[in-house]
């Protein structure tokens, strides 16, 4: 699917088929989740990252069905197509943002998503305890969402943030790599 076609589908679905909710509500709800996790794990930010990823994974498993139902897209032909679909339709429909797809690896199995805006992190400042800045990935739930959603369409991927403006970096960038295509499962007893 070409980039412009994907953008058009994303825009159209966003405008007509999505119920909207107050953005502040989303930001505050997500923020309180992260804050509570940090408190519960007493500053073990690696664990918080892991939990956010797990939560995102469970969301992704279900979100993909809603995505397929609302946008009526079929299977993507290759991983590049997948990247365009994720950035122009997926993120558009659920967060009304369009991260840029860049930094393709030569084997076409890895790419980066660069986020110019991130509604989850509006008005957020990471705590000043010296560790959060280096260890916490605030929007890590998004990585889990991508992982869960793509697993349901038979792609095993790894997604992780490589930089975040909340940490003082220039950009917010997520690296997505295709580990393998998951084959169809055969019924038990078949070889």
């Amino acid at each position, binding site marked *: 699917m070409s980039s412009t076609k994907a953008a058009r589908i994303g825009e159209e679905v966003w405008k007509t088929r999505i119920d909207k909710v107050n953005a502040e509500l989303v930001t505050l709800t997500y923020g309180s989740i992260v804050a509570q996790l940090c408190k519960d794990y007493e500053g073990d930010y690696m664990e918080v990252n892991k939990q956010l990823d797990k939560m995102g994974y469970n969301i992704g498993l279900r979100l993909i069905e809603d995505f397929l139902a609302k946008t009526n897209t079929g299977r993507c032909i290759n991983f590049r197509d997948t990247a365009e679909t994720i950035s122009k339709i997926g993120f558009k429909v659920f967060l009304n943002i369009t991260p840029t797809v860049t930094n393709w690896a030569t084997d076409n199995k890895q790419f980066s998503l660069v986020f110019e805006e991130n509604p989850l992190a509006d008005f957020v400042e990471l705590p000043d305890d010296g560790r959060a800045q280096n260890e916490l990935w605030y929007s890590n739930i998004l990585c889990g969402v991508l992982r869960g959603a793509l697993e*349901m369409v038979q792609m095993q991927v790894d997604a992780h943030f490589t930089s975040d403006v909340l940490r003082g970096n220039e950009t917010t960038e997520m690296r997505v790599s295709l580990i393998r295509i998951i084959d169809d499962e055969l019924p038990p007893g078949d070889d």
Partner: protein
Amino acid sequence: MPIYSFYIFDRHCECIYVKQWLERERNSLRPTTSSGASIINSPLSGAPDKRISAGTIADQSLRTAPGRLSVQDDAKLVFGVVFSLRNMVRKLSGPEDNFVSYRTGSYKLHYYETATNLKFVMLTDVKMSNLRVVLHQIYVNLYVEYVTKNPLSPVEHPGGEGVAVELFELGLDRFVQTIQEA
């Protein structure tokens, strides 16, 4: 135009939902209304459950129709058929092609598979026209809305737990009735 039955299979080759709207021929499926859904919705959890609850009613009719299959076996056979046919179609004309339906002398089977490998199967009367759109509607308007978005309903069904969401079943019944009347 009668609709005989409806199945949903997940990507792990498990039957996660069965609904049969058959007449008296089907012995152990007398309780096919939503009150009997608990029996039907655990298709792979072993025959004993089903027979105990349908015991008294089933005894008589079991004798009249000895060759009838249990729901579980039926679901397994249906899955085997659609899985083989779907692979056959892909082998014959390429991975983009999709198996749509088949017809025998007495019934027609309609098939729809989502990108998440969720398979929707419906058996109807021979003269029914293509129900692919209908199965897509069931997926979009009933399954995604009432099952996927229900946080208490599991995504994976180990041991054949199955879908047991009342809103989904009611919606399905109503939807199927409108098709049958059309």
